[in-house]
Structure formats: C-alpha cells, structure tokens
C-alpha cells in the first residue's frame, strides 16, 4: 500500500466549490514522484465499464492492482489502449493527468501504469 494513507485521500469532495483541494494536490505530488518510472507486476485487474461521476469520457478503462519490487502494492489505472493484460505482466509507472472535477480547480496529476 502507498505510504501514509491519509495523504491519499485526494478525492475529498468540497461541496462548496467542487474542486480538488490545492493543498492535498501539493502534498501528494512529493509522494508520487518517488514512484515514477518504477516497474511492477500485475496481481489482478478489471475493466471498468460504468464509471463514476464525470468519467464517462474515459470509460471503459482498465485498473490493475500491481506490486512493485519492494513488495509494495497499489491500484493504478492502466493507460488507454492496452487490452491484453495478464497475471504477472510487467508494467511501468508513468505520470498522467488525473480525472478533473472542474475547469476551475488545480489540475491533479497522478500515476498510472503502462504494460511493457
């Protein structure tokens, strides 16, 4: 699991302004950087057909639970266009723009994975 679970609660809704908290994005950035470029293996995965709010332009998309070399595991979206996933498949962690809630708020960047 990624360290420090509290920091990962990026998607806390602010009902008043429907934006990601800029402070949370800023805190998260420094943790994310450590994972960029790391390689891992797929433990399990699924293809999401019915996505949550505002993500309908992305679906369907694959999400994989991966394990990186020090046995840390986490779930990451798989980048678009890779359909042949398998148990133990190698992936690399890349920087991508995350789902944006609004046109006003700070842009949230995060990590996804690409099968190698």
């Amino acid at each position, binding site marked *: 699991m990624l360290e420090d679970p509290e920091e990962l609660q990026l998607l806390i809704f602010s009902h008043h302004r429907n934006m990601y908290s800029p402070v949370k994005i800023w805190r998260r*950035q*420094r943790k*994310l*950087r450590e994972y*960029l*470029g790391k390689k891992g293996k797929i433990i399990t995965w699924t293809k999401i057909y019915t996505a949550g709010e505002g993500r309908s*332009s*992305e679906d369907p998309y694959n999400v994989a639970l991966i394990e990186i070399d020090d046995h840390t595991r986490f779930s990451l*979206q798989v*980048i*678009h*266009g890779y359909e042949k996933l398998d148990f133990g498949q190698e992936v690399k962690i*890349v*920087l*991508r*723009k*995350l789902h944006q809630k609004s046109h006003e708020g700070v*842009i949230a*960047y995060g990590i*996804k994975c690409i099968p190698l």
Partner: protein
Amino acid sequence: MVGITSYGFYVPRYRIKTEEIANRWGKKGTDISGSLGINEKAVASFDEDALTMAYEASDMALEHIDRKSIEGIFVGSETHPYLVNPTSTILGEYLGIGNAYQAFDTQFACKAATGALITGVGLVKSEMIKNHVLVVGTDKASGKPGDPLDYSAASAAAAVTIGSRNVILEYIDSFSYSSDIPDFWRRHGQSYPSHGGRFTGYFSHISGAVQGLLSKTGYKPSDFARAIFHMPNGKYPVKIASSLGFNHDQIKDSLVVTQLGNSYAACVLVGLSAVIDTVKKNDLILIASYGSGAGSDAIVFKATNKITSQRKHFNSYIKEKKYIDYTTYLKFMGL
C-alpha cells in the same frame, strides 16, 4: 565549449490518419494528405498534456545527468496547462530538481522553445549558470474541428540540456528574425487558434533568419550535414529548403511531420531527435524554427566526438503506434 549535452523526446503512441479525419468531414483523404504532405499525426491521450509529455521527454534527457545540477528550466508551449501557473516548476517538481533553479515558461507559437534555448546558451556561456539548463518544447496542439489546421496539429515533447561539459552538439552561432505578422493567433477565452488562411510569415522569416545566419557566420548551405526547418506541413519545409539552397538529402531525415504531424513548440527539436542518430563528429546542423506572430530562430550546432554516446533510436521508437478513430480523437482532445 557550450552546447547541447543531452536530449530526450516523447511522442504519444496514438496516431490518427489524415484519411480518418477527412472521411468524417466528408472530404477525400488522399486529396488532403496529398496537399498537406501529412499521412497521419501523433495524438496525446485524454490523460496527457503538455506537462506530462514534457516530463517524459525530460526524464529521457536527464537519464545520465544529475538532477540537482539543473539550474534553469524553461518550457515553451502553445498549450501550457494553465494560463497562469508555470509549467516549468510543476515539471521541476516531478523531475525532483530541488529548489535551486530559475524557471520560466514561454509562448511564441511553434518557436517557444528555441528562443529559450538561445537564452539558455547565453546563461551558460556567461557562466551565470555553471551547470545545466533544461529547455523543453511541448505541445498537445489542436485546431478547430474541421479546420485545415486540425489535420496537422499534433502532440509531442522534446527536451535538451544545455551545458559546458560533455557537449554533444556545440552551439556555434544563431540569428533571429522577428516582426509583427498576425498570421496565427488565439485571444483569451478562445478554445482554438485562428489563422489568416494562406497568409503566413513562414517563408519570409525563415529566409530572414537563415540568410542572416549564413551571412554572419560565412557558412554556405552545402557546409551543413543536416538542416531542420519547422514543419507546419510536409510541403513548406521542402519548399523553403530548396529556395535557400539546401538539397533534399540534407532535410529528408528530419521530415517527421509526414508521420507525426506538427507538434508546434516541440517540432524542430523532434526533428533534431530524428536526425541525431545518424549525425557524425564535426557534422554541422542547422535548425530553423518558425513561430507565428512572428519570428524565426536559426541556430548552428556542430557535432562533437561525444555525439555517438547518445543514440536514442528515434526511428524505431516511433514505429510503436496505435491507430485511433475520430471519436476517440475527440475524446482524447477533450472535445
């Protein structure tokens, strides 16, 4: 000696064929690809933007360079993620550069990066910066759907580091030619750029810059092993090369636009990435960018003996591609 010490590039895997776009608009694909000299272009996914691509290109460029030695980050784009908020520092953060660097973003249509490159050279030459400057050109360009520009506007990023140690391409000289020509522009609040049709400063400015450079340095076109001209389509660079006295062999390796489209601020640096794999020691390289509005930066580099240490195999890299259809294209571009 000051010059380029490393480089990197990123071209998204996704491609859309000119034919696919043309068909959706009821036009004949071969007519358009024929007249533009573009068969397909590279498209960034919905989760990519100028920043994420800049990161990939920079990551490649910084493979053997200590990140803490970067003292300047300059990012040129026509599609910065924010109107106000620098791409260069977001990039610096994700690259792990630390805090001891200066940063600025530039915009100047397709020549946003080359202007910053020349400035970077100046900072290193004057020793105001002792180590490296990172210069990146990156764009996820689009034209208004259905507009001719939409066939060529593409996505890519390319990065160079400027320094004085282990230089692979020595900076020899440059000449810039600038004026005010409203041939391509975008007002606040507009989603797409507008343009004056065939009205362009491309030929006059590149001529002005290159001729100024040749005159200043005493070089002749035949002295150059390679020339890379900005590529708004597949025809213009061929035309300008010929009118300036360069032959087809000098430019042919750089004409990535046919398969990748015009990646705006990244364009000439992507062109450089394409030729650099076959450049030999002492080869002279001319780069002539063009930014609408307008201006051209013509720069001469000379390959050093270290050039062979950095072959990044651009041509096999771009062979890995996935075709997308027009609907996916619209999703990717956020339209």
